[in-house]
Structure formats: structure tokens, C-alpha cells
């Protein structure tokens, strides 16, 4: 009984902020700022309708998704060959290089905001999805290399050699034999790239102004002379949760296996 109560309380506290966000998104501003209500007295979808009909709102999601997907694809396709090299070959300074890659993750994004801003302005990448996607590679490529290296090292070298003896060319071996073997690892790495890129705000906001503005930056617009548009903000927040939830749903099996096998 005591265990049930503990678990119940735990779940309650876990779910409360989430419930409150959803709760708010279906209320009007008057109700939110008025008395405390546990559920919407006058449920309204006006906040969601506004987001889905106003391009300045929904384009925020499109922009965010665009750079996040771009970043995930770039990170994984760069990390795969790098991780293979770290896992299979010994070369001068390989260990140091591997550690240096990891240490990139330790740097705060704010440090890089200014150089990226200046650089991208100069080469005309500023305010494009590419700007953010490339900037996020700084954190996601090392992470993906680290995760994938762990999975690749779990595949015996003899499989590579057997494929050589069977006559496989390297690309054919890599895509037909090797990649399916580390499928879980690719799933886990892609998940982390997606999530880091999706929740990162500072670089995304600094490197965009109008055309590629991410949703997180747009949400700050609801502060106006008329005050805060609480309901709209809450609705935007609910929608922001959805892509992450979807990604988790799709890679849940890989992640369950991946956490057990890999290094993460």
C-alpha cells in the first residue's frame, strides 16, 4: 500500500506540470489570470486555431523541424565513417582525437554564438536552416561518434574480415551487413541528435532573424503591450512537446536495447 502511494505521488508530481500546460492551453486568458480552476470551465481551441492559421506561428515549427532534421542527417552521416575509423583502426593520436571530440560537448553554446554569428553573416548562411543545423553539429557530431563507436566496437572484427573474404566491396559491406548490425545504435544516436537540436535555444535564436526563426524564439513574441498571451503560449508549448514524443515512440525499441548494449 505504502509503495502504491509513493508511486502515485511520484507520478502525480511528474504529470502535474504537464497537465497544467495542457490545461492552460484550452483556457482563455481571462480564466488563466482569474480564479484557480482545475480544468477549463469554458474549453476553447482558439489558441491552437490561431497557431495553425497564422503563418508567423506555424512556420516556427516548420523552421525548427527543418534544421533539426537537417542536423540529424548531417550528424549521423558524418559520425558513421568517423566512428568506424575510431572503432576499427589505430592511428596516430586516435585516443586524443576521440577525447577532444568528446570535450567539444563540454563547451557552453554561448561561447560559440558570437563566432558563428559573425562567420555565417560573412558567408551568407545567416538566417537559414543550414546555419542552425551546422552550428548544432558542433555538439551532435561528437555525441553521435561517441555513441556509434561503442556500438561498432561491439561488432566482432571477424565479421568485417569474413565479408572481405566473401568478396564484399567496402560500401556494400557497410550498408548491407554492418549498418543493420548497429541499427539500434543509429536509432539512439539519431534520437539524441534530434532532441539536443530540438531543445537548443541560444544558437537557434542568435543565428536566425525572420526566415528561419525557430518556434522557441517565436514563443517569446507573445509578450506585448497588452500583456502576456498565456493561453497561446501554453498551446505552443504543448505542440512543442509533440515531435519529441513522436520520436521517442518510434525509436523506443532501439533505445531500450540501445541503452543496454551501447555506452550511453
Amino acid at each position, binding site marked *: 500500500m505504502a509503495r502504491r502511494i509513493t508511486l502515485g505521488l511520484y507520478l502525480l508530481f511528474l504529470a502535474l506540470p504537464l497537465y497544467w500546460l495542457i490545461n492552460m492551453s484550452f483556457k482563455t486568458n481571462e480564466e488563466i489570470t482569474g480564479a484557480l480552476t482545475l480544468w477549463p470551465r469554458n474549453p476553447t481551441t482558439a489558441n491552437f486555431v490561431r497557431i495553425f492559421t497564422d503563418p508567423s506561428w506555424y512556420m516556427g515549427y516548420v523552421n525548427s523541424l527543418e534544421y533539426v532534421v537537417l542536423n540529424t542527417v548531417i550528424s549521423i552521416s558524418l559520425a558513421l565513417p568517423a566512428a568506424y575509423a575510431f572503432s576499427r583502426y589505430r592511428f596516430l593520436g586516435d585516443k586524443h582525437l576521440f577525447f577532444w571530440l568528446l570535450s567539444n560537448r563540454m563547451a557552453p553554446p554561448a561561447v560559440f554564438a558570437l563566432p558563428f554569428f559573425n562567420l555565417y553573416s560573412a558567408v551568407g548562411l545567416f538566417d537559414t536552416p543550414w546555419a542552425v543545423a551546422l552550428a548544432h553539429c558542433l555538439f551532435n557530431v561528437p555525441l553521435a561518434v561517441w555513441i556509434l563507436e561503442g556500438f561498432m566496437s561491439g561488432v566482432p572484427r571477424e565479421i568485417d574480415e*569474413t565479408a572481405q573474404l*566473401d568478396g564484399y566491396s567496402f560500401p556494400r559491406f557497410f550498408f548491407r551487413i554492418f549498418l543493420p548490425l548497429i541499427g539500434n545504435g543509429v536509432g539512439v544516436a539519431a534520437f539524441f541528435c534530434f532532441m539536443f537540436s530540438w531543445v537548443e535555444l541560444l544558437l537557434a535564436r542568435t543565428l536566425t532573424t525572420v526566415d528561419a526563426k525557430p518556434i522557441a524564439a517565436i514563443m517569446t513574441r507573445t509578450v506585448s503591450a497588452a500583456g502576456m498571451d498565456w493561453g497561446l503560449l501554453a498551446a505552443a508549448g504543448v505542440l512543442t512537446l509533440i515531435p519529441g514524443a513522436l520520436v521517442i515512440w518510434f525509436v523506443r525499441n532501439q533505445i531500450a536495447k540501445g541503452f543496454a548494449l551501447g555506452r550511453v
Partner: protein
Amino acid sequence: MTLRLEGISRSVAGVAHLRDVSLSLPRGMPNVLLGPTLSGKTSLMRLMAGLDRPDSGRILLDGKDVTGVPARRRSVAMVYQQFVNYPTLTLYENIASPLRVAGVKGAEIDRRVREAAALLRLEPLLERLPPQVSGGQQQRTAIARALVRRADLVLLDEPLANLDYKLREELREELPRLFADSGAILVYATTEPTEALLLGGQVVALWEGAVAQVGPSAEVYRAPRTLAAARVFSDPPMNELAIACRDGALLLPDGRRLSVGGRLASLPAGDHRLGFRAETLRFAAPAAGTLCFAGTVAVTEITGSESFVHVDVDVGAAAPARWVSLLPGVQELEPGQPVSLAVDPAAIFVFDAAGAIAGAPCRAAA
């Protein structure tokens, strides 16, 4: 068709793995690489396969230099001690894989895969994935894959070491037969002298990265030319005794005189090493004309039809020598029990200080 190795050497990180190996491996009979762990069997096979390159020396296949040809452009099949298959492909696709890469037609692939699967009794399992079948079935899949491609060179690196006893017996009989029809050069690595004898063919005794002796397996077993070859080809380990020959007498390290006449009495002066196999060391009361020793029983291993008795023997050195005696039947001996041992001088190998043979046992005794 022959595979010739000429003066092959290879070291990794300063450690010599192979030292000046020259060999000629013909087709039509198993070529057995026999040696203990780290004797260079796997290193040698990897060079033959083209997975590694020698530091010096040449590898010739039918007179053609293939030293620098990468593995994927050679016609080589290899079976590892660990069961290596592609875990995400079905057994069928695993076996078909080298044929698919070679661009063989679909119907022909199907015919050859089913033929190999029938030989190795894998037919009901073809649609399964490797992790879903037993270790023996996984290894048979790996062997089938090596079989279908009809490679010029088939390398089996201790293929039966991780299998259970019954499967080993079965496969050991079948393997040479399976590959005999393919016309391939068959190379088989093993640590077990018994396996080398059962397979027959040519044996290459390897010791610390160098070839100790090459020849028909029965001959190498009967007449090792070096101490290393004798050691490699003895299971249980060969019993050894260091002696010195002075003024026509045999002396133990502590100066005790061994009273033995005949062949051993006429050895040239100098230091020698006597070697004799476990089955020639008997329990017997001291008698004239034999080499006699006193010892105490350390361990007895009973296999059922035979017993291996490990005995600590006083051989005049600082520490007693641990010898093994192979006796018929079940021998129940207590550890610590004193025993008296005798060796027939006719069954003794004599090696000189450099390890070369100086006297072989009489054929009748062996």
C-alpha cells in the same frame, strides 16, 4: 595447385609472430597446422587469406605471387574458431552471401546453397537467423558458406574447438571429405595432436612462430626431428629429462649415475635431453636394462578406459620433474603415494643441446 610460402616473417609491435616460414601446401589432402596457442597458426592463416601482409617473404598460389593481393580479390574461404556469421541475415542468405557478391545467377545460388545445406544438415533451419540456432549449427553455417563458393584456398582455424564432443567427432570426419571434392587447398589449424593424427594428411608443426617440422602426420608423430616438434606433437606433454654424457656414462644433474646399457650408452659426450611419451612411462619395480626412477603421485586423471597419472619425479635437479604416465584402465592412486617408474630405453627420443634429434626410438618399440 599449391600454395607456397617463401621466407615469411611478420612481427606486430616488435613481437615476432612468424619467423622465416617457408612451406608448400598441396591440394588433395588436409594440411594441418599444429601448434599450441600463440605458436603462429592464426597469424599464418591471416597471411594466407590476405587479411595481413608479411613483413618479408612471398606467398605464391600456383606460382603466381599473391603477396599484396587484398583478401576480397582472392579466392579464399575462412572459418573461424568463434562462430562468425552475419547476424542479420538468415542462414540461407548467410550461405548464399559469397555467391550473391560474385554475381552468380539466382537458380544456381539456390541449387548450391541447398546442396551445401543438405551436406551439413541445415535444411530445416535455412529461414532462421544465426542467433536463433545452436552453436554447432552456426559453425556448420560458416562451414557451408566456405563450401559453396568453391574457393581455391579453404582455411579452417580451429573450427571445432568451441563445439561439443559429439559434434566434433562427426564434423572432424566429414570436413576433409566435404572439401576434398571441391579441389581446394585445405588448411586446418588445431592445437590438438590427436586431431592432427585423425585428419591425416600433411602436418606442419609450429613452435613459437617457426616451423618445427613438416611431413605426413604419422611420420612427424613417430619421428620428430626436433624437440620442438616432439613437444608440439605430444598430448599429454612429453616427459623430458636433462642428462649429461661423460666418459660413456649417463649422469643426472646432481651427478648420480644412470645405469643403462645399449643404445643410450653409446651417445656422444655432452648435454642431452631425453624425451619419452606418457604411454612409455610405466609403473614397474627397478630392473636392469631400464631407466628407473622413484616419484610420488600428484594427480590422477581418469578418462574411463585410461588414466593419466601425474607424478613428481626426483631427477636430480633442484625441483622434481612433473611427468605423466598413461596407464590402461581406472587407476586409483592417492596423491602423495610413492611409486616406482621405468622407461624402456628403446622408446626414448634423444635430443642434443640445440634441440635436434640425436637418437630416435627403435621402430618396434614405437
